[in-house]
């Protein structure tokens, strides 16, 4: 036979099986397009320059790797499905006299054509959407739109093409092996050998309940944001395994329970669907579980990234009650001596005057921040504790003197102004933040630090200084009577922690009348301050000049990229779920056709058949969606703790984002359901 004939047969085969091949081609094209976009964004120098793009390329490379892996799994899955559907046809060729090597040659042309079409469409898709994506990124990063760049690079095209060619090649090799193993007689003998009734796998069932339960319990009960980070992945894995186990064993358990309830089962609306699903679940449970997990992934990814992004303002407000923080110290022979706050304030005021910037307030915020373990009204340093401690026992303490406190009170309204007068063994106590919960529900009456007991004289509602770690660990503020007491505490922790001990933070916090105007001057202002500092202290110095506007920029860079990645990966996950659903429905449609024909012969009405099909489809379709919803709901507590690590503490915003994401996802899912159901009906009838 000539090559031409093979290629002709292959082309007509693809055309005949368009219902199977078109989604496969579109899927590969879509994945390739996303892959192309990620790779190109990672390599786009103009874009990187525009946004100081360190994050950009790192994030996009991560994204490309994830999409690559997903493509591998998905294309092989679709391929195995296609092969199953077409085995009969290949067997027939073999029976009709084609040798297996000829069949494989036909297969080669089929693979070659589909691969070429997919890749070409994918690249076109990628190039078209690249522009859109880069515009989206510009928008998300709130930068000016970088005009005129339309980045097409041979290098960025070659890499995706080679990667996906390799993928298709792999699929072809697998298929040619399976043709070699094909026994045509068995295929022609008819596929309806009947399946064994699925048994309930009790071990799996119990294991599934345990895994899922454990995952949920972890997610709900995690107290501190810090332990949330470690536990999150444990919870994720437990839930994933639990989902798979329960879909495999639990669905069969429930269906069998339904079947043994005679009143429920012997009803024309229930009987065909329940028994149909019972057999179906045996093969489909894994697919449905995958859909559920992918859907959960979409929900979690998009809702967290959207929350992070839209919560930037909030995080900034939390972290930066003032716009600028400034501290500095001179370093002599490895000993650093803080530069007094008055000096720093003078420099800032001078520079501000020159630049015409109006300062609202300058506060001195000398303080000492030390971390302890809190247990029974006593603060232990970590060396004093034998054995482990719970994350919620970790406590950060912010010390100030009553002088500073009283000074800060001058800013307050006269009516709420409260001055402190403390003896040396007295302190004032303030619960600044308890993100880890648990501790400090009951306020201590005395507090022992460094072996010395202090009496708590006052409980303060508000503390004049912000705590940097206040979102992660429980943080309290303590006002001591004077510098001498503070120094005792300083020396005690110095002795305990050695080189890891905390140092005094002699900083000033500055707020401006017109925040926007200052951030517009930005670097120019801060550079001048540091210049001035260097001229006044020509020796070795350390300084920290922390501004709200700088952090805002890096937040935008980080979370903007996060969001973009979340959207693109969410899209790809969704895409994968759709593809799995589509192919499942088609393969089931072909199987169900015979069943429904028999039922019609026996006297089932057409509309009853349609109703049965409908209820079976809905159960299969919406089980994963509901599962995803429940998973996301249970993941909520741990996710909101995790977001606190990333400095987002607005739970309300997160709830709104999650709900919106779920609704949008459910609508998209519903549309896909309707489209798939139509194809399914058409096959069945």
């Amino acid at each position, binding site marked *: 036979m000539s090559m031409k004939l093979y290629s002709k047969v292959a082309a007509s085969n693809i055309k005949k099986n368009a219902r199977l091949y078109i989604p496969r081609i579109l899927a590969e094209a879509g994945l390739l397009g996303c892959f192309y976009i990620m790779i190109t964004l990672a390599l786009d120098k103009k874009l990187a320059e525009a946004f100081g793009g360190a994050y950009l390329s790192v994030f996009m490379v991560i994204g490309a790797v994830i999409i690559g892996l997903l493509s591998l799994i998905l294309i092989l899955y679709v391929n195995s499905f296609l092969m199953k559907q077409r085995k009969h046809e290949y067997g027939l060729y073999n029976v009709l006299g084609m040798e297996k090597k000829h069949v494989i040659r036909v297969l080669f042309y089929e693979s070659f054509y589909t691969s070429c079409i997919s890749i070409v469409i994918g690249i076109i898709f990628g190039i078209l959407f690249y522009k859109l994506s880069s515009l989206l990124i510009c928008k998300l990063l709130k930068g000016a739109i970088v005009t005129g760049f339309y980045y097409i690079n041979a290098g960025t095209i070659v890499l995706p093409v080679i990667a996906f060619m390799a993928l298709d090649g792999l699929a072809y090799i697998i298929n040619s092996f399976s043709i070699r193993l094909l026994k045509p007689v068995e295929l022609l003998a008819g596929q309806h050998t*009947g399946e064994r009734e699925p048994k309930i796998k009790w071990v799996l069932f119990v294991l599934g309940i345990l895994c899922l339960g454990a995952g949920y319990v972890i997610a709900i009960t995690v107290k501190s944001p810090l332990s949330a980070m470690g536990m999150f992945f444990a919870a994720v894995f437990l839930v994933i395994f639990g989902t798979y186990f329960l879909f495999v064993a639990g669905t069969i358990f429930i269906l069998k329970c339904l079947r043994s309830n005679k009143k429920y089962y012997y009803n024309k609306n229930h*009987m065909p669907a329940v*028994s149909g699903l019972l057999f179906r679940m045996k093969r489909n449970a894994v697919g449905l579980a995958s859909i559920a997990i992918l859907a959960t992934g979409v929900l979690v990814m998009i809702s967290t990234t959207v929350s992070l992004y839209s919560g930037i303002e909030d995080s900034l407000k939390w972290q930066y009650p003032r716009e600028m923080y400034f501290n500095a110290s001179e370093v002599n022979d490895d000993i650093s001596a803080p530069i007094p706050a008055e000096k720093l304030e003078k420099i800032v005021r001078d520079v501000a005057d020159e630049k015409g910037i109006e300062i609202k307030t300058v506060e001195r915020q000398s303080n000492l921040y030390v971390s302890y373990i809190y247990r029974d009204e006593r603060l232990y340093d970590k060396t004093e504790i034998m054995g482990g401690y719970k994350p919620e026992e970790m406590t950060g303490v912010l010390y100030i003197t009553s002088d500073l406190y009283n000074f800060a009170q001058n800013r307050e309204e006269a009516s709420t102004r409260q001055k402190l007068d403390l003896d040396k063994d007295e302190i004032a106590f303030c619960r600044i933040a308890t993100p880890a919960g648990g501790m400090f529900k009951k306020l201590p009456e005395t507090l022992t630090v460094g072996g010395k007991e202090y009496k708590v004289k006052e409980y303060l509602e508000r503390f004049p200084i912000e705590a940097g770690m206040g979102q992660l660990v429980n943080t309290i503020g303590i006002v001591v009577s004077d510098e001498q007491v503070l120094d005792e505490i300083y020396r005690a922790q110095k002795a305990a922690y050695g080189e890891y001990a905390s140092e005094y933070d002699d900083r000033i916090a500055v707020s401006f009348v017109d925040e926007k105007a200052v951030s517009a001057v930005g670097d120019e202002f801060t550079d001048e301050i540091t210049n001035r500092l260097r001229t006044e202290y020509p020796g070795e110095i350390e300084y920290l000049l922390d501004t709200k506007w700088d952090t805002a920029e890096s937040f935008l860079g980080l979370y903007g990229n996060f969001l973009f990645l979340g959207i693109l990966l969410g899209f790809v996950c969704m895409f994968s779920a759709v593809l799995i659903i589509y192919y499942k429905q088609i393969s089931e449609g072909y199987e169900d056709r015979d*069943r429904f024909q*028999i039922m019609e012969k026996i*006297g089932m009405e057409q509309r009853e058949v349609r109703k049965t099909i409908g209820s079976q489809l809905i159960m299969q379709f919406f089980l994963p969606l509901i599962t995803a919803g429940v998973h996301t709901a249970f993941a909520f507590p741990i996710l909101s703790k995790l977001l606190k690590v990333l400095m987002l503490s607005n739970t309300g915003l997160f709830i709104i984002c999650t709900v919106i994401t779920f609704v949008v996802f459910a609508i998209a899912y519903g549309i896909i359901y309707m489209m798939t159901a139509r194809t399914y009906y058409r096959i069945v009838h």
Partner: protein
Amino acid sequence: MELLKVTDLKKIYTSRLGAAQVEALKSVTFSVENGEYVAIMGESGSGKTTLLNILAALDKPTSGKVILDGKELATVKENTLAAFRRNNLGFVFQEFNLLDTFTLKDNILLPLVLSGVSVREMEGRLEPIAVSLGIKDLLKKYPYEVSGGQKQRAAVARALITNPRIILADEPTGALDSASSNDLLRVFEQVNKAGQTILMVTHSVDAASHANRIMFIRDGVVFHQIYRGESTNEELYKKISDTLTMLRTGGDRQ
């Protein structure tokens, strides 16, 4: 009493473009008495499947009437047709048509479930039928776990459970070996003796020789009939064979 009356039935199939017309049934007229066991024989293309489809209300005749128990099939409304079939007709097919996701019991009960019968009544009806067909111990099994003959018995049970006016059987022995065939034919005889009317379409002389009356269809008309009278199955077998030979050698109507 006359149960089924077929008068001057005609069926013409028109090809899609209307160019070629095929006359599947020219003019078929016959009647079936209550409690009769009738076999219809004919070669492939003689029109027997078309006839059966029309009797089963799966197809509509071009002209002519089918009256079942005093009710004309053409007057049954489209949306009650499925229920009409379910309540009045029982079907036994060559390929059994059992659902492999149901146990035999569920397969048998399916028509009753579709009619919305209560669970207690279903089980009450199932018991005697399962006992008389000898499949009581197999009810919990799935179709793939039992033999062809047992499957066909289950299919017969499914046809009987609605107490139909008439059982329409389409080549019921076609997929069975000879032992299972004999077995099934004995079941039919036994069911018929209990008063059930049966109309069976078949190729098999052996199957037909168990009936009380055999109708031969050729070229869309009822060509010939044989009544059992006092003949034994063996004698009837001989008569049928002779008739078929005569038909094949092109003899005219006797």
